[in-house]
């Protein structure tokens, strides 16, 4: 592929993963080197970067965002919460993990995942 535009969706994260994602695209880790970029609209994106357990309020917006992303697309679950709800498992506001709402292609473990782990996963997709 060599080019991956990502739309980030916070489905109910504690913002730990957001800080790591911000640093992935910051000057130190600079994921733009590998052809990845954050974009402002799911229409422009090739992938959706989902963080956090999916809360009741965000289940429908998450589904709609993924549906609005043109094919071929990937859904990337970032962090333990996105994978299996993490410490929020069983919470009254939590619908479930990302995979319970939309099909996940790539999962990045960690609470929060290290920027290098996120970059490794992204490079696996762009093959660069």
């Amino acid at each position, binding site marked *: *592929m*060599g*080019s991956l*535009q990502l739309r980030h969706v916070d489905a109910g994260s504690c913002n730990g993963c957001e800080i790591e994602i911000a640093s992935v695209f910051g*000057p130190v880790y*600079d994921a*733009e*080197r590998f*052809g990845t*970029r*954050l*974009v*402002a*609209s799911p*229409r*422009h994106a*090739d992938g959706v970067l989902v963080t956090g357990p999916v809360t009741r309020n965000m289940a429908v917006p998450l589904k709609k965002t993924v549906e*609005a992303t*043109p*094919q*071929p697309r990937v859904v990337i679950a970032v962090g333990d919460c996105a994978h299996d709800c993490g410490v929020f498992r069983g919470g009254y506001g939590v619908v479930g993990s990302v995979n319970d709402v939309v099909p996940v292609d790539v999962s990045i473990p960690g609470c929060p995942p290290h920027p290098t782990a996120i970059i490794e996963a992204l490079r696996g997709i762009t093959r660069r």
Partner: protein
Amino acid sequence: MSTISHVIGTGISSAVQVAVVAVGGPVLVGVMRKVRCRLEGRVGPPVLQPLVDIRKLFRKQRFRPDQATWIFTLAPVMLVATVVVAAAITPLVTTHPALRASSDLFVLVYLLLVGSTLLALAGLDAGTAFGGMGSSRAVTIGALAEPALLVTILALSTTAHSSNLPAIVSAILAHPESVATPQRLFALGALLIVIVAESGRLPVDNPATHLELTMVHEAMILEYAGPDLALVTVGEAMRLTLLLGIFVNLVAPWGVATSTSVSGVVVGLASVVAKVAVVGVFLAVFEVFIAKVRLFRVPELLAGAFVLALLGVVSGLVAK
């Protein structure tokens, strides 16, 4: 016989111009991004990344909002088509492109305006809140840039007694002593401000922003996806390159071919690429050190451009 070879020569020169703008546009955007990233202490994406992105977009699914009409479909095509026509008839590589008599500054300005107007309508057509906001802002900036641009054309055309672009460029080539008259310097300063405003660069619009409330151009194209988005991206990159190409050939026309001979076109091609690259890098460096101005201060900036252009006209009249 000579007329036929002349027609073929101008046709080939125009094709070369369109090709260099079409390929050079995304590359120029890549170069400008690379320069900015380097100065920000980052490595940044490869220079050819925009071309890779565009190739990928052409292979993606086409997505159109349910409420959108034919305007939404037409706008990207027209944006590219108008820039292609404009690139074919402007003196970028040679002062003898096809349809030389039509290569008027007024024609070019309104040709490019057709594309941007349709894009603004397409922003409204998609029916989203941000699209309409982006269109309203883009049209506001465009309407404010318009008077400055028209007075600039007036100031530039008095030297050659014509608003025909090849004639203006040829006049400077024939009279090198008139290259740095106050009239031209004021007008070219105004032209640069208008180009920056029209192509959505800092300080008028930030092409790298992801905050919907600060967007101007990107808010209009939020609903485009796949091949449509690829066309919009190509069209925008081509327009920036074309405007800078016209600018550099008005500032320093040396190198541009005065015929359609092969050697002349090759030299003209190399010189216009080098000149646009220099101005592009200069703009990118400039962008690192400035912030976007507030939307309500953009009129002041464009009023400044208008005053510069007016000073150009006045100083031209006084000097006579």
